[in-house]
């Protein structure tokens, strides 16, 4: 009966994300992982190393807001975003 009502009012798949959309998004990431053959451990290691380098120059949060390999059409890119906590540190960063 609930199914019937949902169907009658066309609610199914509109409020919730459809399963095909979930499948598409999961696959998008899995395929990238498969293609670049970078294990989750390696990803984590790279993340920590990048974090370490960035921390040398500015005061940042201790984790990325976003850190993933993503594909845009034919382009595969590493997208990482991190919050800068203290902007004044940017000014006094040691010159190299």
């Amino acid at each position, binding site marked *: 009966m609930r*199914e*019937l009502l949902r*169907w009658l009012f066309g609610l*199914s*798949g509109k409020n919730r994300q*459809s*399963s*095909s*959309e979930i*499948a*598409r998004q*999961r*696959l*998008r990431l*899995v*395929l990238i992982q*498969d*293609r670049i053959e970078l294990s989750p451990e390696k990803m984590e290691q790279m993340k920590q190393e990048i974090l370490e380098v960035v921390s040398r120059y500015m005061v940042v949060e201790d984790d990325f807001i976003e850190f993933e390999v993503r594909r845009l059409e*034919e382009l595969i890119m590493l997208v990482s975003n991190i919050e800068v906590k203290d902007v004044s540190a940017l000014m006094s960063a040691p010159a190299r």
Partner: protein
Amino acid sequence: MTGKTIVITSGKGGVGKTTATANIGAALAMRRHRVVVIDTDIGLRNLDVIMGLENRIVYDLVNVIEGKCRVRQAMIKDKHGLELYLIPAAQTRDKDSIEPSQLRELCAALEQEYDYILIDCPAGIEQGFRNATTAAQEAVIVTTPEVAAIRDADRVIGLLEASGLHRPRLVINRIDADLVRRGDMMGQKDVESLLAIELIGLVPADERTVSAANRGVPVVHDARSAAGAAYIRIAARMDGEEVPLNEITPRPGMFHKLRDLVGIKGRAYSHA
């Protein structure tokens, strides 16, 4: 005459490689081509039963390669009066019984006399896959709109590229337009954008494919089958004909919606 050898592969099993091979082979033969289909799934042969030729097997692929018989003796002619021949796989041997170079040599010889040689590749990416893909100049990847099948197809596309088989073409099999409409199955666009290779055909889920397999008559011989029509269009595209790819559309109307709801299975869907 110089024909070409095309491997039908997928990575994952059970997505319809053998059915695709039988039907594309028959559809090409219906276009007046001379066609040989080779089952390379040694130890697990199936193309013979799909084509309804299982009772006519005397010699097999391994016999040919080992020189126990002439090629011609292992070629079983199709029942429908077409210039279509099957070379069955050996059932009691394993994939290591043949080497890639041996299959390539056989195909090269067949290319002198036939227009198309289709190789039904075993599932997996081991020896059997290497045998089948090394022998071919072109590849057709079969997938269904499911995560596991698409993931494996992507791996196979990578392996084919690495081994020099560029520009494989894609068949998306068993598309259920009603599920796509409901958002419970990935559609043509989704699969295409994930795999990013050229599409050569969309085959709808069609129960007539199942009954055709039961009978051992490829579904291209069933004039009322949407899947059969799809395979005929794939053969035309292989032949270089411009056949537009129509998105598979759901069966329309209230009646079908109700029928879905109460769980009565529909018949053939519309086609592409």
